């Protein structure tokens, strides 16, 4: 009985040896992997629809430029061969006249007018007045003259350049605008005129406010996290409830509470006046100060929690060891404790900074006109002026800047990485 079994198993081993180990591993793991995939599938689909989809849509809208092409298809085709140096030829004028007649009939003229008006202020009037006054299709050879008579703008090269630039299907126009850049008549990229150049300032402001809020959160959060990590569990749990308390009320309520506290007849000013510390109410709200205070309050837990978890992992034995080796408390803190909290500091700062970048409600409620962050403008363009292209471009620039920062952070952290030390 023993012999056949040995023979069988040795044959089995031979057969097995022919199948590469990697493939056998894959086969063995397949069922588990399928199950794991099935478990994350709902989330994956959800994220695809609610996160990846919209972001892709936003990025696409930032460069999408098909409005003019849809309304003025013949004109775009005629302008394709135009070198842009002189006025286009009669053929283009005839095509434009034909397009305008057709667009008027289908009622789509406003779509193109809106898009062209972004690029050249007053284009809306040019197009609508032309559409209004162009009664019939001009006779062959007279299109240039007819259009020029209706609106002299058709005799200017810039008008035609604008149409050609907007011919799509993709454009860098919105992205350039978001960076305060524009193309001049020659097509070279130049700085936008000062009255239109606002976004760089807004981006700088957004990053500055986010940075100050991050620094404030770190300064306020570090001692709290340290205390949380050092206290015995009973008391630290109580303290943790206070840290998490802000999550129990809505963002709007918390922000409005700051208005109550900080306004000129608010609690803080009244108290200071009553104590005789100040003679006139301080301006604490509708300025940068109010924005930073309110945002720091809202974002503080996002700093404290990662700090706390990194500090909780640091055994008290390290500080004792440092002391026994002759390090005074401050030296031990700076050289032993602080470096080990760096991952927590990094994670907390990144979290707070990125959340702060996208803040909208809080600055809108407690900030002045000069404290509105980029989200305010994105909201403005999506809800008020329906300029989706510019709104998307601003969003795309913000996203790109954030990704760059995250990558820089990743590099920095990698350099500092603590490779699985003793965690008692």
């Amino acid at each position, binding site marked *: 009985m023993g012999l056949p079994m040995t023979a069988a198993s040795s044959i089995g081993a031979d057969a097995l040896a022919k199948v590469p180990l990697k493939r056998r591993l894959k086969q063995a793991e397949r069922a588990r992997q399928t199950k794991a995939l099935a478990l994350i599938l709902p989330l994956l689909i959800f994220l695809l629809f609610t996160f990846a989809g919209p972001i892709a849509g936003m990025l696409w809208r930032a460069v999408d430029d098909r409005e003019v092409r849809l309304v003025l298809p013949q004109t775009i085709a005629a302008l394709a061969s135009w070198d842009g140096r002189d006025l286009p030829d009669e053929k283009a004028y005839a095509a434009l006249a034909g397009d305008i007649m057709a667009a008027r009939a289908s009622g789509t003229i406003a779509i193109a007018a809106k898009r062209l008006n972004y690029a050249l202020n007053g284009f809306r009037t040019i197009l609508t007045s032309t559409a209004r006054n162009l009664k019939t299709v001009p006779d062959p050879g007279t299109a240039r003259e007819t259009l020029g008579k209706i609106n002299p703008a058709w005799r200017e090269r810039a008008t035609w350049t604008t149409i050609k630039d907007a011919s799509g299907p993709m454009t860098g126009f919105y992205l350039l605008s978001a960076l305060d850049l524009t193309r001049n008549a020659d097509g070279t990229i130049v700085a936008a005129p000062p009255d239109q150049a606002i976004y760089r300032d807004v981006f700088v402001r957004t990053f500055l406010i986010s940075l100050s809020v991050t620094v404030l959160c770190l300064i306020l959060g570090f001692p709290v996290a340290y205390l949380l990590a050092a206290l015995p569990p009973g008391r630290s749990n109580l303290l943790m409830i206070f840290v998490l308390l802000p999550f129990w009320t809505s963002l709007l309520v918390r922000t409005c509470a700051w208005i109550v506290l900080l306004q000129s007849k608010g609690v803080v000013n009244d108290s200071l006046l009553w104590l005789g510390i100040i003679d006139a109410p301080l301006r604490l709200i509708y300025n940068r100060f109010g924005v930073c205070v309110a945002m720091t309050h809202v974002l503080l837990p996002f700093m404290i929690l990662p700090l706390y978890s990194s500090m909780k992992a640091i*055994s008290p*034995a*390290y500080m*004792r*060891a*440092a*002391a*026994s*080796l*002759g*390090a*005074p*408390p401050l*030296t*031990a803190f700076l*050289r*032993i404790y602080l*470096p*080990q909290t760096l991952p927590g500091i990094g994670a907390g700062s990144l979290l707070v900074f990125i959340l702060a970048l996208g803040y909208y409600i809080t600055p809108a409620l407690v900030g002045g006109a000069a404290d509105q962050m980029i989200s305010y403008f994105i909201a403005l363009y999506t809800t008020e002026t329906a300029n989706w292209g510019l709104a998307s471009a601003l969003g795309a620039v913000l996203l790109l800047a954030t990704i760059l920062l995250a990558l820089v952070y990743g590099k920095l952290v990698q350099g*500092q990485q*603590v*490779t*699985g*030390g*003793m*965690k*008692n």
Partner: protein
Amino acid sequence: MEAGMVTPAPALVRFSGIQKTYDGEHLVVKNLDLDIRKGEFVTLLGPSGSGKTTTLMMLAGFEVPTHGEIYLADRPIKNVPPHKRDIGMVFQNYALFPHLTIAENIAFPLSVRSTNKAEAQDRVKAALRMIKMENLAQRRPGQLSGGQQQRVALARALVFNPQLVLMDEPLGALDKRLREQMQLEIKQLHETMGITVVYVTHDQSEALTMSDRIAVFNDGIVQQIDKPDRLYEHPVNSFVAHFIGENNVLAGTVETVEKDYCRVALAGGGAVTARAVNVSGAGASTSLSVRPERIAIIPNGTSSDEPNRLPAKVQNTIYLGDHALAVLDVADNREFMVKLQPGTHDSLRAGSLTAGSLRPGDDVFITFRPEDCLALDPV
């Protein structure tokens, strides 16, 4: 005998009337007086909660005595913060700084003392050579094995030449073979460098292997402080007898006391002569302590005139490689151990028994010399 011949070196550490309580009700350390001489290797041995670690922490400065004073080189140190005590310490889980390399870890005590760079480098190199880890200087602690981390912790605690080195169960996390090897290495370091070591452990064999003297702690009190062989051969009470080495206990009542010896009637029947170590007098109850290797088994019927001869029933035999144990039922003790080993004690090798010749249920006799049976305080 030997202790009397050597003039004792002056005490480096002196605990004087130390008491410690955490909750204000219960004393963890009760009135501790302990001298540790320069160059000595003293182990604080005891079960968990006996106060040994608290004592070490008070010496290191991480706990403050509730009462009493600790002197280090004749200087009271109760109010000296840990970083000014000049005491090296090796922790239970090594406490190597995970964000620093091995070399940086070892250099840490030198750099906080602002030792000049060149000298510090030389000393770190020497320390790495001492632990034979020069090639791992740039690794981080997480990349090392437990034994390697232990060596680094040791080097780090020694590199600044402290007056005293404390070790808090440093080998607890290592496996048996590595632990035994490290015991010898630490012992060797102690001998070659002449350092003073205070070592805390709950492992009695570790204490016996390494120490010059062992302080046995129980319930906040030092039960006995002595050389390893004295502790084993001459325990002063039942706790020490039981805690150090294997031990058989027989309960009884003292009948007569005559000089150093006494006659004890066993609770389970029979009487034996024992050395009176810790008995108050005739009529007192006592616990007899006999080491398993000091007992011989006499097969049933063999005549003998030994003064201590008790009937026993074999329960079981356990084979342990280098020796075997016979588990017997003697008097009221059903787990009475007898070590069977060739060549233990010539006079007691009657019948030269081996484990194989004993069967469960056999009726035999055991015998031991009066000087190997200690009459101690009742448990």
